[in-house]
C-alpha cells in the first residue's frame, strides 16, 4: 500500500469534483459539504463510459454528468434502478494534505 499526496485540502471546493491523474490512474476527488473527501475512479460505470468529476454532488452521491446515474461516493455503488460500481480509493487527510492509498 502506497500513500500518494495528491492535492491540497484547502484547494478542494465543497460539493465539487476535482480530477487528478496519478500515474496511469484517473481519479476524481470529491469534497462533500460535511468536509469529507472521497476518491473514486474517474470513469462512469455506464456502458458508454464518461467521466464523473464534473457531476453534480448531493450529500454523499454524485450524479454521472453524461447519463445521470446516481453513484454513492462512500462505496462506489451505483444506485438502483441502474447497477454497477466504480472503483473506490481510500483517502487520508492530514493537515492540508490529501493522500490516496494505492495498492
Amino acid at each position, binding site marked *: 500500500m502506497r500513500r500518494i499526496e495528491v492535492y491540497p485540502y484547502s484547494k478542494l*471546493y465543497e460539493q465539487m469534483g476535482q480530477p487528478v491523474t496519478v500515474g496511469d490512474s484517473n481519479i476524481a476527488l470529491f469534497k462533500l459539504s460535511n468536509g469529507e473527501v472521497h476518491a473514486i475512479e474517474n470513469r462512469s460505470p455506464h456502458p458508454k463510459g*464518461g467521466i464523473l468529476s464534473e457531476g453534480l*454532488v*448531493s450529500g454523499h452521491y454524485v450524479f454521472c454528468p453524461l447519463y*445521470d446515474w446516481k453513484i454513492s461516493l462512500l462505496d462506489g455503488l451505483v444506485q438502483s434502478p441502474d447497477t454497477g460500481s466504480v472503483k473506490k480509493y481510500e483517502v487520508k487527510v492530514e493537515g492540508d494534505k490529501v493522500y490516496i492509498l494505492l495498492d
Partner: protein
Amino acid sequence: MKKQLVMIGNGMAGVRAIEEILKLNKEEFEMTIFGKEPYPNYNRIQLSHVLQGDTTVEEIIMNDWDWYKENHIQLFTNESIVKINPENKTVESSNGRITAYDKLIIATGSSPFILPVKGAEKQGVTGFRDIHDCEVMIKTAESYKKAVVIGGGLLGLEAARGLIDLGMTVDVVHLMPHLMERQLDPTASQMLQRELESQGMNFLMEKQTEEILGEDRVTGIRFTDGSETAADLVVMAVGIKPNIEVAAACGLEVNRGIVVNDYIETSIPDIYAVGECAEHREVTYGLVAPLYEQAKVLAETIVGKRESTYEGSITGTQLKVSGVDLYSAGEIMDDPSVKAIKVHNEFDGIYKKILVRDNKIAGIVLYGNTKDSSKLFRMMMGKEEITDLTDISLLQKAGEEGAEDIGSIPADEVVCGCNGVTKGTIVKAIQTQGLTTLNQVSGCTNAGRSCGRCKPLVNDILMHTLGDSFDASLAKDSLCGCTALSRDEVVEEIRTKGLTAVKEVMNVLEWKQEEGCSKCRPAINYFLGMVHMDAYEDDRDSRLVNEKMHANIQKDGTYSVVPRMYGGVTNAKDLMKIAQIAEKYNVPLVKLTGGQRIGLFGVKREDLTAVWQELDMPSGYAYGKTLRTVKTCVGSQFCRFGTQDSMSLGMELEKKFERLDTPHKVKMGVSACPRNCAESGIKDLGYVGIDGGWEIYVGGNGGTDLRAGDLAWTVTTEAEVMEYSSAFLQYYRETANYLERTSTWLERLGLDHVKAHLADKNIREKLNDRLDQTLQRYNEPWKQAIEDQKVNEKYYSTKEVELV
C-alpha cells in the same frame, strides 16, 4: 472444485435463469455462456423501439460486460455451439473450443421463419429478430425507399411502423383477411387496420407470396394471384421457429421445440432447455413473462431445490406501436360456448370485449383503452366469478369507476410483465425503502419502466400499501423525488416567501434529500433567476455539467468549444484565428455545427481557458438552456429573391437574447422570403420576410418532437418583431416547466391562449420590461473564466501526480 454450468445462448430467458441461480446460490457453479451475437444480453422486446428511433442499442443492454465480470461468468460472444456430446458431457463451439459441463442449459431462442419461396436468399431479404436485423433495416432505409413486410402479426406491424419512421414507404402483406388474427377479433382488427392506414401503412390482404423478384438484390414480390408489388427491402415476419438443430442432433427429444417437463428438464439428465427454444406441454412461448417464469423454476431445479414446477402460462399480448393501444389475452373469438360483454364506442375509437364462460372470464380483447387489462387478466387467471360485478354504465362521469381490491392480489403475481416484477417485490420495496411516489417505485423496482401499461396498477398497490399515509398530493407531478411540491408550487413559494438561494429553497420547503438531486437543483436555480431577474446570483454548482463548465462535455471527457457567430456571419480574420488555434491545440475535429457556426471538438479541460483567451470571441452557448443560434439566410443584401434583410435582423435578435436563461434551449431562424432557407418553420421562434413586413412563427421544433411552428403574428416593423419576440420568450420563461421546449409548452397552453394573452399591449410591455431587466445581469462566461482566478482554479484546473 466448483461444478461447471454451461449455457448455450445469451438471451433474455437464459440470462434471467442465470440471475435466478445466482440469487439462490452464488458459489456452487463456475459459469460459461456462449452467445452467437457480438453483444451482452439485451432487451429483445425493445428492438422495435430501436427501429422506431425511440431508443438506442446501448440503452437496451440489460446485462453489460461488467455484470459478467462481476459474477465471474465466462462469456464467449460471436461463438455458437455446434455439437453437444452428452456421453462425455462436453460441448463444442464454432471455434472448435471443447468445454466440459456438469449442467447444461440450452437457451438458443428462435429464428425468424423465412418463407421457402423462390428468391428468399436475395440481398435485401431479412427477418426481424436481432440487433443485426435492425441495423440492416436502418442502413437500407438510408439508400432505399420501398419496403414490404410479409406478415401482419405483432412483429410485422412493429417492423412496418419502424420502417415508416425511417422514412420508407411500406406495404404490409398478410395471408389472412384480418391483421393479428390470432390476438384480435375482426372488429378490433379493423380498427387497428384503419389506425395504421392513417399512419401511412399500405395493406395487401389475403395475398400469398409466390416469388421474390430481382437479380442479386430484391426488386419486388409476386403473389400467387399473379399481382406484384415493388420492393427494395423485404422483411419476413411470418413467425419464429425454435432453434433446436443442435439439441436434436445429440439425441434430445424434440418436437416443435426441445421438450421439457414441469421442472424444465429435457429427456437427457443434466441438460435443460429454457425460453423460446423449449416446448412445454406442447406449447412454445415467445413472450417474455412465461420465459421468466420458466427461468425461475429452472434455477430451483438446477440448484437442487426442485420444489416449484412450471404449469404453463396464459399470456396477454400488446402491440408496441405509437398511437395504438390494444391488449388481448385468452380466447378471442365469439362462439356458442361463450357469452360476450362488448362495449364499442366508435366515437372515441374504443372497443372492449370480455368473453365469459360459466361466469368466469375466458378471454379479453381491448382496443383504444387498455387500462383495465391487468385487472381483467388477473380475474381471468384467478378464475374469479364475475356474478357480483356490475357491467359498465354508459356515459358515467369520469372517476366513478370503483377501485379494485388490491389486497386480493397474491404476492407472487407478476404485476409488470415486461420486467417480471411481482406484487411482493413492489410492496417490499415500498415498505423497506420508504417509497412514496410512483416514480420512486419504478426507479427502485423497474416496474412500469418498459411499456408502462402496469403503471396504474403499481400506483394502486402503492396506495394500498401506504394506506392512510398515502399522500394523494404526491401522486401529482412533483418536481422530482425530493419533494411533493409541483413546479408551480415551488415557484409560488419562492415568490411569497422571498426565497433567494437554492439551498434555502430546499431547506425551507423541507426537501427530503437535503442537497437535492440532478433534477431539482438546476430547476430551482432557473426558477430563482426567473423570479429575481437582475438580483439573482447564479448557483453555478447546481447547474449540470455543460452549463457549469460553459462547454459541451464529450463522451471521452473532452469538451467542445463553439464561439458565437452572430447570425452565422463571420470574417476572414476570425476564421484564421480559429484555424490557428485548432492547429496549435491539436483539436481533433473542426466541424460546422447545425446552427451555422464552427465547433472545435475534443478540447482538453485544461486547455479550455487558453483556447478561449486566444479566440477572444464570446461563448456561443452551444451547450446551454438558453438561446443557441439564430440561423439566417443571406437575404436582401445579396440574394435576388430576398424581400427583407434577414442577416441584420438575425444578428440583432442574437445580440439581444444571448445568454438569457430559458427553461430549455431556444433556437431561432430568420428567412428573407417565404422560400425559407433558414428553416424558420421548425424553430422556437421563426421569422419569414414578406413584402412589407415579417411573419412570426412560434413553437416549431426540428428535434425529438418534430413540430411545425404556428404563424402567430404578422407585423410590419422590426421594432414590433422585437416586442412580440421578447413578450413571447418571457411568457415562456415564466410559465414553462423546466426542460419543457416551446413546442410542448405551446401544445399545453394552446396557441390561442398565448396569442390572446399577448394581444394586450400592456401585458406585452410588462413582459418586455421584466425580460430587459433580466438581461442586464449576464456576463460573458469565457471572459470571466480567463479573468477570475478563482473560477479558473475551481472549474478548469487539473493535476497530474507522477509515480516514482
